[in-house]
């Protein structure tokens, strides 16, 4: 950040300027500034859901687009995510109180044998930002963990993540088990992770492969809307 920007007093900006500044601060991964911005908007009477969608998700969408286009790289995205997390921590309890709209519910986890969770955590955060309730099973999940969570949480979506070529085939184990139990079609199954591709997603019987967190959110919204339409028609 430049010296000139260091002098900006967030509380002196009007709403529009403040949101623009928060986009910049998210882009630069400035957690404290984001927390301050969130608190200012709340004090000005903004609903928590509006702060989340317009200021935080709006900012992270820019970050996501620039990551997709090769302008930003993983470290910058992680710093931005960390800043957004700071803002989300303030908003989460308020969102629960004020009853923000819920788009759907997702159970997500990294598969057995794999401890990598950076991508999964980004997806969880962006899904929450988009109004999904997310149950995060963490890392190294055997099929039993997924099945148990599907039964107890009754989500719309199952998300699976893997970073390794050696662990990504485990996603098929989970989907095959769901087929055996006759529950596969009860859920939207989304998969993601660096070595995956669309072809792999199709081959293992997932509904979609999601290249990044932004794509995951869009895909999830699309499938949930389709599911709701089908239910309404049925």
């Amino acid at each position: 950040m430049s010296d000139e920007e260091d002098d900006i007093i967030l509380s002196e900006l009007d709403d529009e300027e403040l949101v623009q500044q928060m986009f910049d601060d998210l882009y630069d991964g400035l957690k404290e500034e984001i927390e301050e911005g969130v608190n200012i908007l709340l004090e000005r009477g903004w609903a928590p859901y509006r702060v989340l969608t317009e200021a935080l998700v709006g900012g992270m969408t820019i970050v996501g687009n620039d990551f997709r286009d090769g302008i930003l790289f993983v470290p910058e995205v992680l710093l931005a995510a960390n800043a957004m997390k700071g803002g989300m921590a303030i908003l989460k309890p308020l969102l629960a109180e004020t009853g923000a709209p819920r788009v759907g519910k997702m159970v997500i986890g990294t598969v057995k044998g794999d401890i990598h969770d950076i991508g999964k955590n980004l997806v969880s955060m962006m899904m929450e930002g988009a109004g999904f309730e997310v149950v995060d099973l963490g890392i190294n999940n055997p099929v039993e963990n997924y099945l148990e969570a599907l039964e107890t949480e009754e989500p719309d979506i199952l998300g699976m993540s893997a970073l390794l070529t050696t662990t990504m085939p485990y996603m098929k184990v989970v989907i095959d088990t769901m087929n055996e139990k006759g529950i596969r079609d009860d859920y939207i199954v989304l998969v993601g992770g660096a070595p995956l591709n669309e072809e792999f997603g199709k081959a293992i019987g997932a509904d979609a492969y999601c290249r990044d967190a932004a794509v995951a959110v869009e895909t999830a919204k699309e499938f949930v809307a389709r599911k709701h339409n089908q239910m309404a028609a049925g």
Partner: protein
Amino acid sequence: MAQISDTELTETGLDRAGDGRVLILACGALAREIIALIKLNAWQHLTLTCLPAKLHLYPDQIVTAVEEAVHKHRDQYDRIFVAYADCGTGGLLETKCRELGVEMIAGPHCYSFFEGNTAFAAKGDDDITTFYLTDFLVKQFDAFVWRPMGLDKHPELLPMYFGNYEKLVYQAQTDDPDLTEKAQDCATRLGLAFERRFTGYGDLETALQSA
């Protein structure tokens, strides 16, 4: 072969070493090991060329780079052998090599074939919290790990990257006390326990024998 630095192997690769009729198209991270094996076994029929090792930071670029290199060199050699394992390409490199009619190294990555693919696979979940470095990666730790992950500027990201890891295993291809010391320092910087495993060249030698 003229002296080539590890930085060159990372950034630009290796143009050519040797005059054999069979071309080994390799990852720059394997150059020194392959040259050592060629010398050790007097494999005069092999020529080595390497793509930049830094392609490993963007595995999606490996397949295209290998394909382009195969097309570039194939008229000048009797045969080409690709000295890459899957290397994070999710099976796409294997599919491409089959399409191009060239052989490649079996296994998911160099950590696996240096220990021996069978032995590595047999470990199952025992090593899932292990981060691996080879001789080359120890030497190029800053270029491959520290800087690309932004840890030089933002050490606060360390738990996000390595929070689920417990141990750094240095797979040593050679006996070099200086490298072992450097590897130990890498483990300290990452906040991980340290183990040195001497692997030698593992399945790399077997794979090149068939080239």
